[in-house]
């Protein structure tokens, strides 16, 4: 599950709408990626005050060229550095990390829901689903048109593509989740995959539950290590034994079955989580 650590040369950094598409030379990583996995990138260069790696979902990974691509939104200091890094710079990258999306045992109809840069892992997933015989419907939403990533590619890899924006600057005005129930209901979706903000994942998961369709979500929790040693990236997840645990999203996720995530308890400590009782004492 845990990947290798490489010095990946930056091939290019290209603005794509509000995002930056970063292409890296990383054969060891490109060789073994499955959709939903991510990389952890050291930022800031030598003598930086930024100690922690930043995580990014893998958008593409091509074993033949040895290249990988990530889609980066400039957010804080680390991404500000990353989107300005010059071609040729060696980046310290660890990956591929995390549990990927799993394909259904039987072909069927898959609905892929993505918010903002959350579409990054969806294209490869769509291709694999189609290769395995599933029909694929993609819903992509964002705040505005410049925050939609890969609409054209979505059309290539999916049977249908629905687009929403909050401000109506592209596709239908509204939330990405507005477009989901229709897809779940009528043609009879057999699986749902979602990547995007937590609130969206939760909403999609709840919809899928209503229609009784299995739903996998890729969550995005703050991660200090990305490799499972620090315990910072946890969220409460129900195990197969029915008991809830604080589970590491970097190694046991980032992909979870939506129905197992205790959405409303994320960011709190439910009393029935295994070991919560031991917290009271000290």
């Amino acid at each position: 599950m845990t990947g290798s650590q490489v010095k990946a040369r930056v091939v290019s950094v290209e603005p794509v709408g509000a995002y930056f598409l970063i292409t890296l030379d990383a054969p060891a990583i490109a060789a073994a990626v499955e959709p939903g996995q991510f990389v952890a990138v050291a930022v800031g260069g030598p003598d930086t005050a930024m100690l922690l790696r930043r995580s990014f979902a893998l958008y593409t990974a091509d074993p033949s060229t040895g290249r990988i691509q990530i889609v980066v939104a400039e957010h804080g200091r680390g991404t500000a550095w990353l989107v300005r890094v010059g071609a040729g710079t060696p980046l310290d990258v660890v990956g591929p990390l995390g549990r990927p999306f799993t394909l259904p045992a039987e072909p069927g109809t898959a609905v892929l829901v993505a918010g903002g840069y959350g579409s990054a892992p969806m294209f490869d997933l769509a291709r694999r689903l189609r290769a395995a015989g599933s029909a694929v419907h993609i819903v992509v939403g964002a705040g505005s048109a410049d925050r939609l990533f890969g609409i054209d590619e979505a059309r290539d890899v999916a049977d249908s593509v629905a687009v929403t924006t909050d401000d109506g600057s592209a596709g239908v005005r509204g939330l990405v989740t507005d477009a989901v129930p229709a897809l779940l209901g009528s043609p009879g979706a057999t699986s749902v995959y979602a990547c995007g903000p937590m609130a969206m994942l939760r909403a999609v998961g709840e919809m899928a539950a209503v229609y009784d369709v299995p739903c996998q979500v890729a969550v995005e929790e703050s991660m200090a290590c990305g490799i499972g040693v620090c315990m910072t990236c946890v969220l409460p997840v129900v195990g197969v034994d029915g008991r809830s645990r604080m589970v590491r999203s970097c190694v046991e996720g980032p992909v979870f079955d939506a129905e197992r995530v205790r959405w409303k308890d994320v960011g709190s400590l439910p009393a029935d989580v295994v070991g919560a009782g031991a917290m009271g004492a000290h």
Partner: protein
Amino acid sequence: MNPVTIHDHECGIGEIPGTHTHDHGEAGQRVDLATTLAGVTLPNPVLTASGCSAAGRELAPFMDVSDLGAVVTKSVMLRPRSGRATPRMAETPSGMLNSIGLQGPGIDAFLEHDLPWLAERGARAVVSIAGGTVEEFAELARRLVGVPALVLLEVNISCPNVASRGQVFACDPLAAADVVRAVKAEANGVPVFAKLSPDVTDIVAIAQSCVDAGADGLSMINTLLGMLIDTETMRPVLAGVTGGLSGPAIRPVAVRCVWQVHAALPDVPILGMGGILTGLDALQFLLAGASAVSVGTAVFHDPSAPTRVLSELRAELTRRGVRRLSDVVGAAHREPQR
């Protein structure tokens, strides 16, 4: 005269023969890195730090953990613990804050799943234990003595004392001594190291108190208490409000603690830690008086940090013509020979 001898490099004037140690020694013979902590000989002085490498298994893709001096496992408690709510971490300048709350599987699962994995690989384990009462510490020691892989017990006394309204054991010389004494009574010859907190007025007093109670050595330092406020939400970032500060930011404090304690208790072995990122950082701790070091937060920055630090340290010592690790331990306290 200057803190750095750049002049000598720049124009060679006033150069003193032999001061350019860093240009020599490439051909030096291999340095003997073995180190001894209270009778336990480790093949080299670079260990992981408790809580920063889980129980070692996740490091396997990046190194052979048996190459390390030892793996220091995350502080284990008697019962499974959920840890705190998230957010549990925040990045700070050259450091980070964490407030994990000692999440862990409890001693049973630890003995069943974690230690055997290390034992199978021939790795040495320093097991860190934590409790809310003196009796919990003693019970943990009892459970651990004699299990394979275990070479040393590290007693994490930087956790709140249930009996004392949550005051941390490590901040009170008497409470710290009570824990050490109880663990020592169960340890059956396994050396016991007390892990000290820097958040005290007089770390030497705490160190002395632990040693008097039977500690075979000292680990230092644990994190400094810190906090961060989110200026957008205007609330503390961490769910636990305060957290432990670690990383290079705290290195000068850690080196100072090791220095002070080694000066006062030169015969007590020290496992030094706090912000070690490179082999030269590790060397600072050795020079200050540590016989071995733990690499903690650096693992989050670079998962291969422990073995990288080890090889950098080996190279730096070789370059200096050092033969035995023990020659540099505490050397900064001695006047230079030349």
